């Protein structure tokens, strides 16, 4: 009787939220998969034709695939370690209390709170040809003879995008590490001190291994984050010049909502989302096993 009532209660708590997720996330995920096999245009939504693997085929013959893969790889290689290392260092410097520690923690979190749109606009303005940075580099420091075209040189533009990503993400990583560092038992440090371990040895042998689980959580989240780069690309370079700074999401978005080719864009979304989901999945499993 008692157990039966509890079981009924369980579903009352469980179903609303779970069904909602199914409705707006799981079902679209399935739909997306189906769309990717159709010639499906935004201009005639009611009329789609099955074309098998044609969308995927077209994608693999598109040069943009390699360009956007390369760009995302570069972006990820800069931003994931960049945010992790700097975020960890910030947390390591700020996890014990000293006068002013709250100020620093708050200040380092400010970029996280700044929205992508706002941050992209500011960075764009700072890095424009006649912007402040160029003024500093050419007219003040004389490091360059002519203004650097930061945003119209693909490699530099991607670097600026990555700098923005790092700038914006350090505070978030810091907060996660702050929480983790406070859970490392002080007794471990005390024991190490008794054994004569220096600050560096304590960091390498105690601190870093103790926050391993947090690190891998952060890593997963940052990989997803770097995969999600979109707003900054759209607002700062628009994928240009000549699609050279395109990433998957900007390409997908333009395919869907500028060229109206929903089927193609759906296939793109799948091609990129699947490996990432798989990667994260594997990482999570590995963490579980190593516990």
């Amino acid at each position, binding site marked *: 009787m008692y157990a039966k009532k*509890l*079981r009924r*209660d*369980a*579903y009352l*708590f*469980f179903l*609303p*939220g779970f069904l*909602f*997720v199914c*409705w*707006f*996330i*799981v079902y*679209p*995920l399935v*739909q*997306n998969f189906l769309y990717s096999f159709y010639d499906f245009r935004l201009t005639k939504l009611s009329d789609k034709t099955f074309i098998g693997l044609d969308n995927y085929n077209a994608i693999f013959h598109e040069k943009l695939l390699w360009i956007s893969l390369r760009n995302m790889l570069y972006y990820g290689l800069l931003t994931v370690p960049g945010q992790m290392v700097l975020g960890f260092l910030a947390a390591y410097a700020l996890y014990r209390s000293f006068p002013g520690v*709250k100020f*620093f*923690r708050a200040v380092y979190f400010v*970029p996280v*709170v*700044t*929205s*992508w*749109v*706002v941050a992209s*606009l*500011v*960075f764009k303005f700072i890095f424009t040809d*006649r912007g*402040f940075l160029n*003024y500093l580099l050419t*007219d003040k420091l004389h490091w360059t003879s002519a203004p650097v075209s930061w945003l119209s040189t693909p490699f530099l533009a991607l670097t600026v995008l990555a700098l923005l990503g790092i700038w914006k993400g*350090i*505070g978030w990583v810091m*907060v996660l590490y*702050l*929480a983790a560092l*406070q*859970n*490392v038992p002080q007794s471990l440090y005390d024991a190490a001190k008794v054994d004569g371990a220096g600050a560096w040895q304590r960091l390498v042998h105690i601190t870093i291994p103790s*926050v391993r689980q947090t690190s891998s*959580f952060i890593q997963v989240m940052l990989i997803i984050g770097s995969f*999600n780069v979109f*707003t900054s690309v759209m*607002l700062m370079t628009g994928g240009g010049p000549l699609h050279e700074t395109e990433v998957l*999401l900007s390409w*997908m*978005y333009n395919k869907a909502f500028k060229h109206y080719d*929903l089927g193609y864009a*759906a296939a793109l*979304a799948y091609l990129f*989302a699947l490996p990432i*989901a798989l990667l*994260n*999945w594997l990482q*999570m499993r590995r963490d579980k096993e190593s516990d």
Partner: protein
Amino acid sequence: MIMNARLSRVSIGIALLIGAAISLYPLFFMLSTSLQPSAVILEYPPRLWPSAPTWDHYKEAWNSQQFGQSLLNSVFVTVASFFALFALSSMLAFAYSRFEFRGKRLSWLVLMACLTIPVMTLIIPQFVMTRDMGLYDSYWALILVYTASGIPFTTFLLKGFFDSISREIDESVYMDGGSSRLLFLRIVMPLSKPAFVPAIIFNALYIWEEFPWALTIINDPAKRTLPVALANFQGQYTTQWGVVFAGSLIALLPILFLFLFLQRYLIRGMTAGAVKG
């Protein structure tokens, strides 16, 4: 040895200050640009700080009809999504933390899988679906999708915290004839206040600044949320950087205050919650 310790403390201090300067520089830059008259902004060489600061751009941004309206829209959409999101997520987390039921393991896997899917890859089916529901160009489309997208992570955070609340409390509640609703509303939820802080901050950030979905599903300028309105400012007044940054700063304030207000609970909430070292 002592000299060494002092030296390293000083260099850490300097590094921290440089980091702080870099963190705040873009904000400073926005502020200084927004306070300059438009003619001065375009001058070369650019100025670090205006010689004659003016609030004109703030007045202009504030008075432009779109901006005020989009601020209201953003507040409305964020608040509405929050209610739905936190109601559904906390119930869901409670179910996972306190009950055994059929499909528990499988559904949890599904939820965690949703956590790893980049939200934007769903934009096409979500667009078609909400359009078919007649919700194109409506706040509902925003609220429903924001709520659903926030549920997996919020549930994950809250469940971690709920799990840390002793189950002996459950026993005593049921023994006294209390219902699970009582346990949820009167005991687990109040005890979990710290866990809500990181959840509130992360969701507020996500919803308040969400750009791609709002850009796609909203067409009517009067229904735009702040991020879309700001991005549009840039296109609309190509040279009016002063207005753009004045608007950006106004948009930043609510979330900055929310964060400063909740900040001291943030780390405590995370320490106690799911993300442990």
